[in-house]
């Protein structure tokens, strides 16, 4: 089983992530699938994370938390967020098979980030469904 995304869709998603997240101060954002594949990744040019390892771990982490949710009788835990000294990381599900991961610093509030992530996801859904 495999799936393909073309230049137009990928460009579209990159544009959304850049305008809605990177341009507003998010350090790094990537869209992955639940198998851990990296679909789109962008950063502000000042950081160099090992995106492929991050993607594998994020997919595993999200899967583990979803499995925990089911055990305690929840559909899903809606907020998945880890807070650090300088960097924070936020996970958001996109449809059933994708995950948007955002890394951001102190200068961005969690509330604002969630708002922007929700907006971006709306647009990405449209692109993925097209």
């Amino acid at each position, binding site marked *: 089983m495999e799936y393909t995304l073309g230049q137009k869709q990928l460009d579209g998603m990159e544009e959304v992530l850049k305008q809605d997240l990177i341009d507003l101060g998010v350090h790094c954002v990537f869209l992955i*699938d*639940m198998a*851990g*594949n990296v679909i789109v990744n962008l950063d502000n040019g000042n950081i160099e994370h090992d995106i492929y390892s991050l993607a594998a771990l994020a997919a*595993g982490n999200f899967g*583990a938390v979803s499995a925990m949710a089911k055990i305690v009788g929840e559909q899903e835990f809606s907020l998945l967020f880890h807070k650090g000294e300088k960097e924070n990381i936020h996970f958001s599900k996109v449809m059933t098979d994708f995950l948007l991961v955002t890394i951001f610093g102190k200068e961005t509030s969690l509330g604002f980030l969630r708002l922007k992530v929700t907006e971006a996801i709306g647009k990405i859904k449209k692109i993925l469904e097209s």
Partner: protein
Amino acid sequence: MAFVNLKKREVQVKVVYYGPGRGGKTTNLEYLYKKFKERIKTEMVAIKTHGDRTLFFDFLPFDIGKIKGYNIRVQLYTVPGQVKYNATRRLVLRGVDGIVFVADSMKVRREKNLLSLKNLQENLATYNKNIFKIPLVLQYNKRDLSEHGIPLLSPEILKNDLNAQLKAPSFEASALIGTNVVLTMKKIITMTLASLQRELK
């Protein structure tokens, strides 16, 4: 669930090393990591317990170069083999494109191999995947132990136990020494890519 990126002309595929606990899955990846260190560039990720048993998975990304103009990135994973970790084992299988089943050749592990293979079949079924259809390679590991006087299952017995119906390509190997570790990996990649070939125009 391989991902084909037409923009970067890149294909990402997921290969999972499966098998009973202590069979040598992690050792396979460690050998590959050492052997191809200069091509891998990043650290190998390992989520493990203090006793070095895999708790969630190991992860090793592997750039194997270009095929038909596409850059091929293979992501190698191992599962935790211990019976109690089935929930995490199943998570690692999500979106798998090819599987290496690492069987333990030690006589005392005969039953464990059978149970693990059965468990693989069940876990694949939860993703609507069929063990007879997915690219699969068997590895009969720890062959080096015969030199130390440790009783091993003969290749015929292993074949009868595990591969009589599957009829998958199989290799006798030693992950510790490195015998046939690269060959196992190359075989599963070739098979996995062949099954994706239709997509690569």
